[in-house]
């Protein structure tokens, strides 16, 4: 009888251990699956328009520079929608893998609002900031790339304000200021250094 009980206890322990291992495997697989599947949910209705030539200012982590690159994309007439589409294309370069300046999956622009013709308010997805790498240079590269790309392609816009999920945020990921407005004139000395 004692032998039977001992065997049953051992079997139960083995079963518990095996289930624990199996659970870990399931969790790991699920984690890998979540990471490998890009977030392809549309965040806004697609826009249509004639092909236009725009300049993207792409950030490169190594060696820490921002470089201009011309691309042709279909853009609507409305300036705010154009701004959103241009940033959408720019961020698309960063969420793909490999990328010169990786941003987390789901990093995208939700909306661009133009105020008084010279100010753009950009609303970003939560993933843009929540999953952003932390560091002065890496955050600065993101901000410089966004602001320069937007102001270079929307004539008259000289100031940019970045919101995250419709709200003001203190910093992007602990360093870059998101409370103030970005002035294109103040940005120029930085871009010269980042050439």
């Amino acid at each position: 009888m004692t032998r039977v009980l001992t065997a049953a206890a051992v079997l139960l322990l083995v079963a518990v251990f095996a289930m624990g291992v199996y659970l870990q495997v399931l969790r790991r697989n699920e984690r890998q699956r979540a990471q490998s599947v890009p977030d392809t949910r549309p965040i806004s209705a697609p826009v249509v328009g004639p092909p236009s030539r725009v300049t993207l200012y792409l950030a490169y982590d190594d060696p820490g520079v921002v470089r201009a690159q011309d691309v042709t994309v279909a853009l609507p007439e409305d300036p705010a929608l154009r701004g959103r589409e241009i940033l959408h294309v720019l961020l698309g370069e960063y969420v793909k893998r490999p990328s010169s300046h990786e941003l987390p999956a789901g990093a995208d622009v939700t909306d661009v609002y133009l105020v008084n013709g010279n100010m753009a308010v950009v609303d970003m997805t939560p993933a843009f900031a929540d999953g952003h790498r932390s560091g002065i240079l890496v955050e600065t590269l993101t901000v410089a790339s966004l602001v320069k790309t937007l102001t270079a392609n929307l004539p008259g816009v000289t100031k940019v304000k970045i919101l995250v999920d419709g709200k003001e945020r203190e910093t992007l990921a602990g360093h870059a200021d998101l409370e103030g407005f970005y002035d294109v004139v103040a940005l120029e000395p930085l871009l010269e250094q980042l050439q």
Partner: protein
Amino acid sequence: MVILLLMVFLAGAQSPQRARETAPAPEEKQLSVYGPRVSYFLPVSERNGQDYVALLEALEPFGNVSAGVDGQKWKLHFGKLEAEFRRKASAGKVAGKKFELPAPFLLEGDRGLVPLRALPAILGRMLGTKTDYHEAARRLFLGGAGTHFTTDPRENEVILNFTAPVNPLISTEPGKLKMTFTRDPVVAGSYVLRLENPLVSSVTFAESNGRGELTLLGRLPLLAQFAPGGKTIDIVAAPRQAQSFPPSTPPSPPAGAPPEAAPATVETPPVTVPAPPTLQSLTAKPPFVVMLDAGHGGDDPGALLSETLEEKAVTLAFARRLRNELQTRGVSVVMARDADVTVPVEQRAAMADAERVAIFVSLHAAAEGRGVRVYSAMINSATPTPGGFVPWETAQAGQVLTSRALADLVKVELARHEIPTAELPAPLQPLNNVAAAAIAVEILPSGNDVGSVNAGVYQQRVAAAVAEGIAVGRPRVEAQR
């Protein structure tokens, strides 16, 4: 005799900055190592109730040294010599011979930690030199290093003669003048000298936490004068007109009030509560103080530099080293944080503005890149409006040109110390809100190993270069205030 160092007074009240500087959390443990040609600090870590130090960092100042992990073994190469230890083992090999440790060897990542008590013997064997370890004070003297001094009391002065040039930090408390020797291997055993002197009643030397401290108890306000060459310090009575330091003017008595009695004796220290600010004191040029802002802290860990290394820990350790380096250059320092506590970013700028500091240095760390990056605010410059209000969002605008000039000087000093460096503007919080010269220093690894960003010797080298840049830039900053 030429006066080379700041005057300090027994009668002067402590400035609010200094009072706050001494208040926070317990001091970080450190070991000072003094050799014939090099002196340096090592951070001491406590593990399982024992003090430990990183062996690689202890040997780095003496030449090419490398270390690597091989399974459970950690091997260190120093020239032709080797040391080998096993994780959690209390015995290993040093220079080909068996070596017993008083506590187990620890391996954290690829950093090998040895018990502090074993370090003197290990260094002695690896360097082939005799060692003298002052265990209670954590001061290690190699190869007979040591600076001695004599006290020569005279009628109107007390002369301290040292056997080598010294550069102590001078500080004061009511009734005391204190000289703190951090880099100088000053030794005197347990030294207490009572004097029948009209100026100084006693001279005491003591050691603690890697430093030597010489304390003079005074009967009058004292002034320390350095002779050329740095081997002689002359202690004299401070001139009376200079006793108003810090520069604040006491409020005038109300009409009809009896005039204040003159101080009865000079031995009675004045009240240490600072006088309320007056218009005159607010418009007077405040003392030159540097605020060190160790980035992040508390709930905000900053960037995760490796699996176990958070940015907040690196910035705090670096800030403490930079504070020492600045103080040895005669610069007063106030810390935005001196412990692992949460301090909102805006509060750091508000503290700097309220204290009217001369320079604000924000300290950060990153894992990508090599060397050091120096940043200034990304803001358009504007002409300061003397006496006018300064908008919070653009408080830096009137100072940004000075900040950039300072960043340039720090960059030059880093390059002179052969540390790879870059300088650029950045939209870093809270630089725009600081109404003083403001820069950020981001320390990066020295090589491929991310952990090197937290290595004591490397941080010390960077801190020395940054402090030198600030010292060189001081006249320019002073001229703009």
